[in-house]
């Protein structure tokens, strides 16, 4: 029998998903977590914090460059919107999970990149609606149709890296060996051109070559949450 004096007022924090607590998630950006987003009265966002409090926050100090939080996600206008973290140690293996929509397609527009240009980029190349990765070399995948929500998984890990759309078979190959060193969302790392016209509901950046089982757990979390 437990004595009353043994009850504690301490409430243990519980995590629901493994990627919240395994120490491998370097940035978790959730457009439905309004407490992590700093926006003005017109819903333009100056700050999108990492939900795990790492300090790897997506920032934008120039008004014209600020993406807009809409009812169905973060909107990047394809003209000049982007976010950028401060540089931080982010090296391969890098596994990125995105719930996103390509609104329009324009060659070399970047969905995300590392701190410097093409240090770990997902961009639009070839012909619409192809996406490809590049961190010294590239993997292509044209399975995410325009104006369609999908879950995109990107692994930068030399050989084999992968680019996977939804539950389709991943395309594997060599994406090169550059390290991201930070996160740029909506543009290449140099952030002065090639802005993607897109929407993002949620993005999870990890520093692990997740097993197929763990990758599918994250995929299933995102699929269930957004009814995809």
């Amino acid at each position, binding site marked *: 029998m437990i004595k009353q004096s043994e009850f504690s007022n301490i409430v243990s924090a519980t995590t629901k998903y493994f990627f919240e607590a395994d120490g491998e998630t370097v940035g978790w950006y959730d457009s439905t977590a309004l407490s992590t987003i700093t926006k*003005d009265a*017109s819903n333009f966002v100056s700050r999108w914090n990492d939900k795990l409090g790492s300090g790897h926050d997506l920032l934008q100090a120039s*008004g014209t460059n600020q993406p807009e939080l809409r009812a169905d996600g973060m909107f990047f206008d394809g003209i000049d919107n982007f976010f950028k973290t401060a540089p931080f140690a982010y090296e391969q293996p890098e596994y990125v999970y995105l719930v996103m929509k390509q609104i329009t397609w324009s060659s070399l527009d970047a969905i995300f990149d590392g701190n410097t240009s093409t240090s770990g980029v997902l961009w639009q190349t070839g012909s619409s609606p192809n996406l490809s990765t590049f961190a010294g070399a590239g993997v292509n995948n044209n399975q995410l149709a325009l104006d369609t929500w999908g879950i995109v998984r990107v692994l930068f890990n030399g050989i084999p890296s992968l680019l996977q759309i939804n539950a389709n078979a991943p395309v594997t190959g060599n994406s090169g060996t550059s390290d991201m060193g930070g996160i740029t969302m909506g543009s290449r790392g140099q952030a002065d051109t090639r802005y993607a016209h897109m929407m993002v509901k949620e993005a999870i950046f990890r520093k692990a070559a997740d097993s197929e089982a763990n990758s599918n757990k994250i995929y299933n979390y995102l699929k269930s949450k957004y009814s995809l």
Partner: protein
Amino acid sequence: MRAIFKTEKAAVDFSDKIHNWLLKNRKGYNAERWSIPSKSKNGNKWIVKLPEDYPISEKLVIYENLLSTRIKSLYKKLIQKFTH
């Protein structure tokens, strides 16, 4: 809408004007500046994107400045007709 300028200084001054307007008029506006003006592809113009909520009267001034002298007076008359 974008405003196009012949000099970087004019573009920066206009960007600062927008920034000050937003500080006064857009609740919660949180930026260090409105923009760093970008160069046109041929490098001889400077471009500043306008916010959606920037007042129509200010946008019309930009249009007016792009018109040739011959039709400016007609344009001014049209503006007066629709804004008063």
